């Protein structure tokens, strides 16, 4: 479904991605793990057309996306729920969801919103509230709900558990598991190694702009190298 080959990108003279290759297949949950500053968020931004790639290819369901702008990528069904949520704080919860379907026809939008409300009952309670007044966990749900409004074929989730309380983190991972169970392909970009590996089928470890390790999640879970990198154990 998603095939990334030798992707390079950066800001000015600084190269952040130094040749990244990875795949996500239909219906799969893939985790991309790595500590702060290794280029995970840049990778997501390049995939969603916000930061231009300097070289390499991105194919999504057969179409070349490396030179496309964000609207075309969203229309193709590759949707990125960013780190830090980036919801519209000055718009109501419902308006946030409506804009999630900005690239889709208006018809059926209301039904889709009802579906999202069914998945996230809390959002329905707060439908008319400004999104900026939601709690961190609710904002994260809204961000995911907004992403789902775009009718994704592949959903990129960037640090969905960041800054949430332990209880909320549990809830978030349970939710992601439910989405995955419905057949949606998910690329999960996380620092939360243990829970991500439990959820994902396969995983990539990123270090300093390149993939250093990849394989089935269960294998990586018992990999000593991984623990060394994260805990110095």
């Amino acid at each position, binding site marked *: 479904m998603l095939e990334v080959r030798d992707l390079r990108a950066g800001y000015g003279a600084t190269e952040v991605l130094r040749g990244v290759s990875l795949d996500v297949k239909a219906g799969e949950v893939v985790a991309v793990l790595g500590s702060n500053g290794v280029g995970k968020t840049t990778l997501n931004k390049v995939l*969603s057309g*916000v930061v231009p790639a300097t070289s390499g290819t991105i194919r999504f369901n057969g179409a070349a996306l490396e030179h496309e702008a964000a609207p075309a990528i969203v229309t193709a069904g590759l949707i990125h729920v*960013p780190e830090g949520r980036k*919801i*519209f704080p000055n718009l109501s919860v419902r308006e946030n969801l409506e*804009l999630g379907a*900005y690239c889709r026809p*208006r018809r059926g939008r209301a039904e889709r919103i009802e579906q999202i409300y069914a998945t996230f009952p809390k959002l329905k309670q707060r439908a008319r509230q400004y999104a900026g007044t939601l709690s961190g966990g609710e904002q994260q749900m809204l961000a995911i709900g907004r992403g789902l409004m775009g009718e994704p074929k592949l959903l990129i989730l960037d640090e969905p558990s960041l800054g949430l309380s332990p209880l909320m983190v549990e809830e978030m991972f349970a939710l992601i598991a439910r989405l995955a169970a419905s057949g949606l392909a998910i690329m999960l970009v996380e620092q939360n190694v243990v829970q991500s590996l439990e959820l994902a089928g396969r995983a990539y470890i990123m270090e300093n702009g390149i993939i250093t390790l990849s394989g089935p999640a269960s294998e990586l879970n018992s990999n000593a190298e991984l623990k060394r990198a994260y805990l110095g154990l």
Partner: protein
Amino acid sequence: MYSPQIVVEALLNGLMLGAIYALIALGLTLIYGVLHIVNFAHGALLTVAMFMVWLACARYGLDPYLAILIVAPAMFALGYALQRFIIGPASHGKDNGILLVTLGLSIIIENALLAAFQSDTRTITTDYSFRVVELGPLLLSFPRVIGFGVTIATTLLLWLVLHQTDIGKAIRAVAKEKLGASLVGISVPHVYAMTFAIGCACLAVAAGLLMPSFYVSPKTGAAFVLVAFTIVVLGGMGSIPGALIGGLLIGVVEAASSLFLGDSLGQIGIFLIFIVTLLVRPTGLFGARA
């Protein structure tokens, strides 16, 4: 000094002129709120709109109020093109670049108009230019009463566009969260250009409202530019209700200070408000923290 009737009349007329100021400031504050740029060419673009209205009336015999229906789409298109093809690309997205490019544009526009129309001032006379409306004992200028009404209507229309249409919601979304907007597939350059275009269309409405009772020369807009900035800063950069209330307030202040200080010193009151607001409360009366 003055009889209460003269003072009240002056203040009411000021209030109504303030409404037109508010309309000019509305475009400016919308552009600031979304693009986060100070559009220094706003005054010059107002002059362009006023010349368009003048041409429509003087050459083609249109009523200035009806001319708005033609000038507004024209200004809308001009604004879209300016932002999309000149201001956006030329400024490289830098604050300072935008400031200088819009300053350059204002000088280009002003002097192109000067070359085309010379520095003469031009007016339109309509049979209602000097008509007055009697409100009990008070006499109010008819064009200003119309101006007040149309401003309120335009503001309502703008509010509806911003809250009920997809592009309006996209504009509000981009104002606060550019990255998030891109990620739902909103084209930020298009939204920027649309916002600029709407701001320019507001100028067209203001121009149509001003022409029956005002004059236009290539430098007319320059006189409005600091007034408009004062309103925007006073109301809070980016705040639409702020621009409306700020405009009315400034209209009253101007009327009061020219009544008591004379026309030339009267302007100082506005500039002092501007300076003091910037120094003491740069976020304005209604603005959130920058």
